[in-house]
């Protein structure tokens, strides 16, 4: 007879105000095989965990059900707590009576309590048939792949390599530096972007543990955290740094433009951003009028030290900046705010006024978003010291007239429409994911959000991790961000890599699919059914195999398997039937 303990959590009032937790506990006591039940205000707190540990020892429990919040919250907490008593952690299950019971059924306490009891009952049945399991241990390849050679990728690569691990940095263009190389100076101190960047590029290029591949792209990708296999194409141009290590194999002339395959344990995606195409904004003359330029074109002028109109080379006396060009416009363009443009525009307007002291700068904006140390003060300086005129309103149209531009807009503060003559218009275009990042996302299988940026694992608490284990995110590939934030986040991504590489081995969950070799006929139905590519046919035996590191235990294979050769450990057909029988009225004979 099983000796299962049931522990019902109040979660303060989160559960207890709707579910009669005492009744859940009392009712379960009569369930066959249940040897002990208790309820407590916060099971996850120290005394709550101690209560479970004591009960396991005192009542010699061989299985535990904790009725509490979602297993995503505290399954690992309770499994760890139980394991300290010697109980196999895979004989601990969570009955979710908060997200699936008390929260959605507020106002129906009786029904909620009955549902909670049924939910716990099913988990008691599951535990009854849970096998004690041991996690798999897999080796780790301690080499990192960094995709993208902008400031985010450079920073992440440098930290990982400085900690002693080899890094391969793959950059699509022919040089390192990314967007930062296109900037003139940085807000708020007008530090020279090129100088700051050059230092970091030199550190990366000269690093004996960093292999830089330019003109290169990731074309193939497989494996799992700790053991990825990467295929990179287009190895053509310069290889630096790493050649110190193996000069004979990595001299540029020996590299062929053929795919090159190697193994890595972790990946940092730092593919940055592009600007929304000017052509998408015909109402602003984007792509049609030469003197309507984007903010990166204006940066190029500032880098030259001269601001001249593309059309005729004249120094523009009046320049209009249009913020949110393509941003914050859910009906026509991108719905989101691109975060960095307000500060970029303020910097450009000041820089313009420094180069052209007699010039006049106008900025159309919706809200001025200058959030950072000294940022708001910087915008104030633009207005007060550099006489930049800020107009709150949208620009409706830009038309060309007699070799000048006319900007038609609204000033929502005066409530009037405005028409400004301008020699040059700078569009602060929305930041969008860099071209090719969607293809990369498909190759390496990371999720993207509704705007095409890489999705972080949790919007608050896991901002530098992707939803795929072992793949981390840095910089504007996740969402537009400025340089300080990018550097901090890239360092954070590097920390995740270092943490992974510090583990003696990878630990993989054992609750995955298993094949009964006596029943499997090698029909192969499970192979296409698996969404994680964890299934394959054995090279010579008539059998299907499971890659335990890739398998997520979803059970799709078990469903398609015709002769029930495949089962998911601790979620077998027998268990599921027992769980159903526990709650379906026609079969519950107890």
């Amino acid at each position: 007879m099983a000796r299962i303990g049931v522990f019902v959590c109040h979660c303060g009032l989160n559960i207890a105000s709707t579910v009669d937790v005492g009744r859940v506990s009392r009712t379960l006591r009569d369930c066959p095989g249940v040897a002990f039940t208790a309820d407590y205000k916060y099971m996850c707190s120290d005394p709550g965990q101690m209560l479970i540990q004591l009960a396991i020892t005192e009542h010699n429990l061989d299985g535990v059900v904790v009725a509490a919040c979602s297993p995503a919250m505290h399954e690992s907490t309770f499994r760890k707590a139980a394991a300290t008593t010697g109980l196999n952690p895979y004989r601990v299950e969570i009955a979710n009576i908060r997200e699936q019971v008390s929260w959605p059924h507020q106002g129906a306490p009786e029904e909620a309590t009955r549902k909670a009891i049924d939910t716990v009952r099913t988990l008691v049945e599951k535990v009854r048939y849970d096998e004690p399991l041991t996690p798999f241990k897999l080796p780790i390849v301690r080499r990192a792949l960094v995709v993208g050679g902008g400031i985010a990728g450079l920073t992440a690569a440098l930290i990982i390599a400085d900690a002693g691990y080899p890094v391969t940095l793959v950059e699509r263009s022919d040089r390192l530096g990314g967007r930062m190389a296109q900037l003139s100076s940085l807000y708020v101190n007008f530090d020279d972007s090129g100088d700051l960047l050059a230092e970091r590029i030199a550190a990366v290029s000269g690093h004996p543990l960093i292999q830089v591949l330019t003109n290169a792209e990731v074309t193939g990708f497989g494996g799992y955290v700790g053991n990825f296999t990467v295929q990179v194409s287009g190895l053509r141009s310069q290889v630096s740094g790493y050649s110190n290590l193996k000069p004979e194999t990595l001299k540029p002339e020996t590299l062929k433009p053929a795919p090159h395959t190697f193994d890595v344990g972790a990946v940092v995606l730092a593919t940055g951003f592009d600007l929304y195409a000017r052509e998408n904004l015909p109402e602003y003359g984007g792509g049609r009028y030469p003197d309507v330029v984007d903010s990166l074109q204006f940066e190029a002028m500032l880098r030259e030290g001269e601001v001249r109109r593309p059309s005729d080379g004249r120094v523009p006396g009046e320049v209009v900046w249009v913020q949110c060009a393509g941003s914050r416009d859910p009906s026509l363009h991108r719905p989101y705010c691109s975060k960095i443009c307000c500060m970029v525009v303020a910097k450009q307007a000041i820089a313009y006024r420094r180069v052209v002291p007699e010039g006049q700068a106008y900025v159309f904006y919706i809200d001025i978003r200058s959030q950072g140390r000294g940022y708001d003060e910087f915008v104030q300086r633009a207005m007060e010291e550099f006489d930049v005129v800020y107009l709150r309103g949208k620009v409706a149209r830009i038309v060309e007239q007699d070799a000048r531009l006319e900007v038609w807009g609204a000033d929502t503060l005066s409530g009037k429409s405005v028409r400004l003559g301008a020699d040059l218009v700078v569009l602060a275009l929305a930041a969008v994911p860099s071209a090719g990042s969607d293809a990369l996302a498909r190759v390496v299988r990371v999720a993207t959000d509704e705007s095409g940026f890489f999705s972080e694992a949790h919007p608050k608490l896991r901002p530098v991790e992707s939803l795929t284990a072992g793949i981390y995110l840095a910089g504007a590939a996740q969402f537009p961000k400025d340089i300080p934030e990018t550097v901090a986040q890239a360092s954070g991504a590097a920390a995740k890599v270092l943490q992974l590489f510090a583990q003696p081995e990878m630990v993989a969950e054992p609750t995955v699919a298993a094949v009964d070799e006596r029943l499997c006929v090698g029909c192969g139905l499970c192979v296409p059914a698996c969404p994680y590519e964890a299934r394959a046919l054995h090279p010579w035996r008539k059998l299907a195999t499971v890659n335990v590191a890739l398998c997520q235990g979803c059970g799709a294979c078990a469903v398609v398997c015709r002769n029930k050769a495949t089962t998911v450990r601790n979620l077998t057909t027998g268990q599921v039937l027992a769980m159903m029988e526990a709650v379906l009225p026609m079969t519950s004979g107890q």
Partner: protein
Amino acid sequence: MQTVPKCGILNYVAEQASIPRALIVGAGIAGMQAALDIANAGYDVVLVDRLPSIGGRMAQLSETFPTLDCAQCILTPRTVEVGHHEHIHLRTYSEVEAVEGEVGDFRVRIHRHPAYVDWEKCTGCGFCQEKCPRKVLSDFERGVGARKAIYTLSPQAVPNKPVIDREHCIFFQRGKCRACERFCPVGAIAFDQEDVVVEERVGAIVLATGYDLYGLSRMPEYGGGHVPDVIDALAFERLLSSSGPTTGQVQRPSDGQVPREVVFVQCAGSRDPEKHLPYCSKVCCMVTAKQAILYRHRVHDGQVYVFYIDIRAAGKRYDEFTQRAMEDENVVYLRGKVSRIFRQGGKVIVWGADTLSGQQVRIAADLVVLAPAMLPRPATHRLARMLGLPVDAYGWLLPLDANMHPLETVRPGVFLAGAGTGPMDIPEAVAHGSGAAAEVLKRFARWPDTPLPVGGDTEGKE
């Protein structure tokens, strides 16, 4: 554990002595993240917090923007992980008193306040708090809720051990009572406990000291400090929190009524170089939008007004979130400054300007929530002086370089994370925490004789 030269092929200049152990000051979300990332790589961490338990500001929040995850629910798995981590040594209710030495070998004096409870014996059963007859307003509840003279910050506190507040304890004040002692089943009450000073030796330090809010009483023009129904954003978080004093019911402090009209005032003390602070506090726009939405979730027919200068919703799904507040929850955003807030009968009158219509606005509200400016915690300044770190004019910690080295300081071996460097929201603070951990891990790895927590695999190092 085995000792191997970590970077055999690299000819780094051997940095002097080297203790691969980190001190983290501040156990909020940034400090906890740094601690976990360092500890999960196998190194020891000493995590210091001045409060009795960890979690920092995030433990006070109700739900978090823009997904409305319950803060406590996503935080407790973290606090529990930190609390039970074999490589993290918690020193709560403690403050750093002095630091000597250099990178690789800092000697840190840590002063622990007397809890008057023997935490070794205490099981966290909570009887003492139940039996304590003395109720006082709680700082953690921002004055809208009470605690006992013996207390933990919350039922999920990590560590879940109480402290006695000497100022309010009847025994300490009048020499009798001892109710807690009488009811403690394990004899853990220790009225004779004294201050303890310990020394820790660490190789690197991360400052994650967080923020405070600009005091309400500094804004008398907004009724701050004298109108009871003018509260600050953190107090409103406590009212919204299901683990707060009202279990998530919105009730105003003066009479416990459910407010029907609520006015939020953004930039209270921010962006006001003449009277208050010149800088933008970065997170208040989103906090306000969230609070407006949460209020409407609790009071469906309630009316919300928000006074703002610019709506700063720059982040993934942030702008869309404020749009939701306006469109789905009918929150009325008024662009303009508030000039005066005062009490009239049972109402709180708000005088302001609407710069879009050019009209003066007068709203008779039931409750006013100010989104005050953020300030560095007072201890930050002391720590900065102790360590020789520069701070800006308002006391925020300054990094080595704002752009290229945002987490390093002028002092080798001392790093920064989180809102001690300036206002920031949770994801940014978490990224900062991980980033500071990377700086620490990188240096630990470079130290010549650092024991490598990895069993022998040096494949990657050729």
